[in-house]
């Protein structure tokens, strides 16, 4: 069995960044396993601009952003296996994969980095009644048909869910000559980035129906009509609010879910709040030597943060490979009031080697809030934040010094400040 220092599962934005970072940290014997025919992952179908402002200080398209990392990886001679599907992951750090070129192969590694990405929630996971004709797609599927295959899926479009891919597709399909009748969002606020609401809907006069959802589809062969209804606070449709749109296409942009069947089958402990593995401050899961990052860990808002997080995970993996030492007892870092999750979920005060950045989201929109970092009952620090949206990821840094001094579990809360 071929043995590697590190195996990276996934060659998208997270996997490429992790590979480059491992090489930069002197971990030479690595391989990236990528299922698609080219590296870059989902970035390849995101031909719109807006990637890279954090990482490269310029606006790039998805493929251009990916290209930067592919170039870096090439320069460092990263071994990327394309058309290679990982079929099994085991807690003993063996990985089984299949490809046309190599067949059915099992390899082992000292460290594994999961950079597996996410998938789109499908119709079955939400309750839309009615028939199941052609003409219903996830937004990402329609995006692939349009941007990679070169086909429009329809001309009269409605979009359910204000996730970013749906918003981007509203603009893209309008520019391609389709009529987008509206975007429905079951929550009372948008789930996409504010800039996408502006640039993709408002600039094209596409209505956003907040607190509305698509309740029924009609049509035998191809979609003919959808029913839209307003919902109450409990998200139940309100009788009497039915509206109908004669559309041939319904795009679903109703959420992304980290793709974790490999991790689950390997028995890696998951965090239900993110639907990804629980990770510590080095991005190691609770299964020793297996790390996770990117949208396969928790869904991000910007690709730049995916790359950044993957870099951190690779640094964690490199340190693990070089030092393999006991890091002492971890202390939990938990989401507090108005915070829906916390990544990473613990720190190691006895091995506080660097600052640790925490990623989380707020549970509801807030104009003003105070970040409160507590250790046990003690308030360590507060920070003011403005214009908070669940669609945007929040970040907080605990310094190495702060971490080293910790004696109790940490809670990070967002206390809402309401104007008089």
């Amino acid at each position, binding site marked *: 069995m071929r043995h590697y220092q590190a195996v990276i599962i996934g060659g998208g934005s997270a996997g490429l960044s992790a590979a480059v970072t491992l090489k930069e940290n002197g971990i030479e014997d690595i391989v990236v396993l990528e*299922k698609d025919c080219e590296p870059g992952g989902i970035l390849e179908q995101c031909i719109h601009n807006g990637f890279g402002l954090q990482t490269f200080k310029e606006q790039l398209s998805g493929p251009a952003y990916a290209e930067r990392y592919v170039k870096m990886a090439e320069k460092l001679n990263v071994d990327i296996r394309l*058309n290679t*599907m990982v*079929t099994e992951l085991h807690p003993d750090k063996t990985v089984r994969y*299949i*490809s*046309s*070129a*190599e*067949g*059915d192969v*099992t390899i082992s590694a000292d460290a594994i980095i999961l950079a597996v990405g996410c*998938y*789109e929630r*499908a*119709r*079955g*996971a939400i*309750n839309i*009644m*009615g*028939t*199941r*004709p*052609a003409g219903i797609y*996830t937004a*990402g*599927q329609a995006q*692939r*048909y*349009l941007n*990679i*295959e*070169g*086909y*429009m*899926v*329809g*001309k009269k479009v409605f979009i359910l869910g204000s996730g970013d891919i749906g918003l981007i597709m509203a603009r893209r399909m309008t520019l*391609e*000559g389709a009529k987008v009748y509206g975007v429905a969002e079951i929550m009372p606020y948008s789930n996409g980035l504010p800039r996408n609401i502006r640039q993709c809907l408002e600039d094209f006069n596409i209505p956003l129906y907040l607190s509305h959802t698509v*309740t*029924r*589809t009609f049509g*035998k*062969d*191809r979609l003919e009509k959808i029913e839209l209804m307003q919902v109450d606070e409990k998200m139940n449709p309100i009788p009497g609010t039915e509206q109908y749109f004669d559309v*041939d*296409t319904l795009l679903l942009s109703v959420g992304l879910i980290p*793709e974790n*069947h490999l991790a*689950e089958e390997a028995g890696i402990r998951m965090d239900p709040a993110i639907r990804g593995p629980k990770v510590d401050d080095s991005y190691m899961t609770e299964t020793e030597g297996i790390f996770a990052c990117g949208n396969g860990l928790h869904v991000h808002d910007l690709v730049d943060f995916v790359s950044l997080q993957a870099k951190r995970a690779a640094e964690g993996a490199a340190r693990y490979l070089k030092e393999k030492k006991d890091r002492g007892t971890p202390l939990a870092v938990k989401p507090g009031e108005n915070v829906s999750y916390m990544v990473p979920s613990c720190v190691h005060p006895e091995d506080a080697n660097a600052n640790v950045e925490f990623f989380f989201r707020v549970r509801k929109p807030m104009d003003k809030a105070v970040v409160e970092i507590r250790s046990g009952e003690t308030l360590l620090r507060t920070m003011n934040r403005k214009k908070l949206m669940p669609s945007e990821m929040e970040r907080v840094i605990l310094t190495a010094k702060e971490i080293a001094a910790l004696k109790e579990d940490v809670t990070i809360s967002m206390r809402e400040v309401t104007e008089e």
Partner: protein
Amino acid sequence: MYDVVIIGAGITGTVLARDLSHCHLRVAVIEKENDIADGATMANSAIVHTGYDPEPGTLKAKLNVEGARLWPKMCEELGLHYKTVGAYIAACGKEEEDHLDVLAKRAQEREIPYRFLSRQEAKKEEPNLSDNVTKVLDFYTTAVIYPWEAACACMENAIENGADLFLNSECTGIEVLEQGYLVHTPQKDLLARTVVNAAGVYADHIAKMVQKDPGFVMRPRRGEYYVLDQDAQPVKHIIFPVPSAAKGKGVLAVPTVYGNTLIGPNSDYIDDPDDNGTSSDGLAYVRTNISKTLNSIPLNRSIRTFSGVRPASDHADFIIEEAEGLPGFINAASIESPGLASAPGISRYIIDELLSKRIEIVPDKEAKRTRKAPVVLSELSEEERNRMIKENPSYGRIICRCEQVSEGEIIDCIHRPCGAISVKGVKKRVRPGMGRCQGGFCEPLVLNILARELGISPLEVVLDSQKSVILESENRK
């Protein structure tokens, strides 16, 4: 001239076509949809019931027992999934326990193995059983199959033995001739010595083409289901409530051959036999009723909901008989549950008791009973997989990551007899899109493979029916 024309390529029609193809007969199957197994066979509970439930003296009782006896051999010959999971009939309270005794007595008379389990014994096997459950009757030989796979394999075997299949061929009229029948379809007319009406929810419509009063009226009943992710396996056995005459078999939990769990169905009369949509009331009924027998069913792990339409009629029993005054015109109607379990029994009954009176049926010793087993990569050993991939690299390109289906398997299912010609046809045969992402990633890839293998433009590839196109136009350049 055909010896037998079968109207409808559901499980009844395809199993019959296979059995007839093992004889010296010319057989044709006509189907109005763009694929076989597209009606009740497409959407049901996938169970081979042992036959304890039907009332004594009915065709249902006779043919279910017979069918359940024949399924294992047919599955072996055709290389089909047949998984014995066992069925728990869960009684809640004294009254229902009494009914278990009735079922046990029937089972004994029909030589169906069973055993009783106390609540504790059953709970040990099925921890999610509700505390309402007081006693369980275990029919441990009950199996689940993969109905579309079975229908496809039967049709394939029939075609290899010379039977004809005509898709998109709705029966638009039947003329009674002096000797035989002329069956009209939009494409062609088929001359038939005998006709078997296996048209499912449309059986009365077909019968009326030749009979003034067929003596039955179809009363289709829709059943809605949740499909749970393979990771969420709340039960190991099929869990039934105690059946009742009024409500049929009730809401079940079924562990399928591929590890998904079905939760359903409800039972609603519908006006339009093609109305296979889902409803909020129907699914709410399923949610409420499953909690009678089971706790903590993870419906939040549902990856799909669907409905199927039972071809029920105003008769309680199957209607399998020669139409009065019409020699060789056989109605096989009202084949609702346990229709799937009974299918091989129904086929034998039609051949031995009805057709044999009208046409000479001579077994063909040369006929094939088996078929070339399809390559199923995920079921091969590592060594076999590597050999297959070396011979044909397309088996090494995985298209569907949820179900681990390779390009080679998809290509195979398109080119087999009775092959797939739609995205759903591929999904029914080799499962890309059945997993948790529901085709989010693989549908565009499957579409391209279909276009290439069928020699058509991607714009012509359909989801299911002939008009269900997926792509609208080429992108502006």
